[in-house]
């Protein structure tokens, strides 16, 4: 018992250090590179010509929004996977992300909204899809396969909607919309991100606080009843918290492909003690987002938005996952 706890905490610390290191690189690398001393000085509020603007106004917002988005996707994806006992059941595979994205694109391009209003649309889209999937997929006993299939169907529909909206957009908005749709930190601003920060903070704490219930839900259908947990209520509350978190993240940075399904799964692969690890999954999400952003911004001659990189990493991972859990499903 104690070694298990120790392992969980040490992984948490290692992941946290990982985020710090990546965060430093995020602030230091770019058009012009700055060393650690300069970055620290700037962060302490010292005015350094050139560096201050680049670090404080451009890179720091990206870093913070990236961390928040990563945590949101990681925690939410992990919660989905734990509740449904299936690594494939994550918000992005199930169409929650693309539906939130479609509504957000609609709000941005057609209605010309921005800020909190866009988040509201995204949340509405995400919650709507989640409600549809879970209300239909209940039937006699909750069927995960049904839920996954329905999610994929809805995703195809949302994709059609997104392409349609893109066609209505004029060429001027198109480039911006395409960047956003690929999932991008480029337009990250700290003003207006307060709501995002508070949402992620509250919901992450809430889910962490519910670790015990989450653990019980992951055990099976009958056991929780005997343990005195109201399965349906807990499941819905926890899933909705996750959906809201992913939707808000999507509204701010666009649909970040594959982050939510990779983060939780990788974390559980590393710790392997059969726990829930919400916080670890959140930090893992942040690590995936930050390192993809670093790759996208620095590894190529052209800068690519972070979502393109996570998509390219995530697809083979999903296929690998499919192949590795073969024969478990019909």
């Amino acid at each position: 018992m104690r070694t298990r706890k120790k392992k969980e905490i040490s992984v948490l610390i290692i992941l946290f250090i990982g985020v710090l290191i990546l965060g430093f690189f995020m602030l230091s690398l770019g058009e012009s590179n700055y060393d650690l001393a300069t970055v620290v000085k700037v962060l302490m509020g010292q005015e350094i010509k050139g560096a201050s603007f680049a670090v404080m106004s451009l890179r720091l917002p990206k870093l913070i929004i990236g961390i928040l988005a990563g945590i949101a996707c990681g925690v939410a994806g992990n919660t989905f996977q734990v509740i449904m006992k299936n690594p494939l059941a994550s918000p992005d595979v199930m169409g929650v992300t693309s539906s939130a994205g479609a509504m957000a694109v609609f709000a941005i391009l057609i209605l010309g909204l921005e800020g909190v209003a866009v988040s509201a649309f995204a949340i509405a889209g995400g919650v709507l899809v989640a409600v549809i999937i879970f209300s239909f997929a209940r039937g006699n006993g909750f069927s995960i396969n049904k839920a996954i299939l329905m999610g994929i169907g809805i995703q195809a529909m949302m994709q059609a909607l997104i392409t349609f909206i893109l066609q209505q957009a004029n060429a001027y908005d198109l480039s911006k919309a395409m960047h956003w749709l690929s999932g991008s930190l480029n337009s990250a601003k700290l003003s207006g991100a307060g709501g995002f920060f508070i949402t992620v903070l509250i919901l992450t704490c809430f889910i962490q606080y519910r670790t015990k219930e989450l653990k019980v839900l992951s055990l099976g259908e009958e056991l929780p009843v005997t343990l005195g947990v109201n399965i349906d209520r807990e499941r819905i509350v926890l899933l909705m918290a996750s959906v809201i978190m992913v939707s808000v993240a999507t509204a701010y940075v666009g649909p970040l492909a594959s982050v939510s399904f990779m983060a939780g799964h990788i974390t559980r692969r590393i710790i392997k003690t059969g726990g829930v690890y919400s916080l670890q999954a959140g930090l893992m999400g942040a690590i995936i987002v930050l390192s993809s952003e670093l790759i996208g911004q620095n590894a190529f001659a052209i800068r690519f938005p972070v979502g393109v990189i996570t998509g390219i990493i995530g697809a083979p991972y999903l296929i690998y996952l499919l192949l590795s859990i073969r024969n478990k499903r019909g």
Partner: protein
Amino acid sequence: MQNNSLNNKKLILFIVASLMLLGLALVLSLILGSKDISLAELFSKDSENALAGPIFEKRIMRTVLGIMAGFALSIAGVLMQAITKNPIADPSIIGINSGAACTVVAAIAILGINSSIEYIIFALIGAALTACFVYCIAMVAGGGKVGPVGLALAGAATSTACSSVVSLIMLPNMNVMEQYRFWSVGSIKASSWDNIMVVLPFILAGIFIALILIPSLNVLTLGDETATGLGVNVPLIKAAGILASVLLCGATTAIAGPIGFLGLMIPHFVRIIIGGDFKTLIPLSAINGASLLLLSDVAGRVIGRPGELEVGVVTAFLGAPVFILLVVKGRAIK
């Protein structure tokens, strides 16, 4: 005996109704649009109206393409569902669209292709590669059996990968982006007869293979072992069926872009009415598929005025609920 004749009557009735529906769809497709053409104008030989000529030519082209695409997608759907024994198999679920898009965009950027014939060829190649890839993954993941969830997930993963590659190539390049966005929504607005002629042989070949396969497909419904026992070469039939469905939906995607869910909806609908005999299922799915596609296209033209709503969007919105219904009813997962 009585039951049999009753079935025959029902079948004939359904055939007549399907043909009438197709006729109606044809006429509507010719006369309705951003500018309506009256029936009288349609049948008067001497076109005094100078405008009617070119518009009418476009409408004919579009209707012909609609029929071709409807035939091709529905038959492809029947074949895929029969071979994978999987009721949700459809080009849009398998990710063929994004596979085709991926090769086209790559070819635009790397090889600098710019003629529509080249687009079509590369789209065909992409569609074929994607179909094989997804099918293989689903097969391995299912331990030799292609399960619905495996197929759908393999398709979803491949789609994600392909669209990431598309963004990777496209984002730095506004020209490609502009070209791609109009290709990426399914539409049967054909650009020229030449393009139609390029894909026609592929579609005809696909339909031809499907027709030859009918007796074997009927035996295949009894199960792979039984079929083998009855002297059917199961792997060969399956390979031929996959080839045909790839030809059909690859060619359609190449010329019309992604038109989803048609191949999913139509065979189910036809099967409910007349049962699963491929002798009737394949032709009637083709006819009704063409009708539905034309009607969706007409609906898109009418709803979307003064512009138009592309048919791919209309079919996605019709088809996704059908798909969900299939899943809910448990037809997708036994």
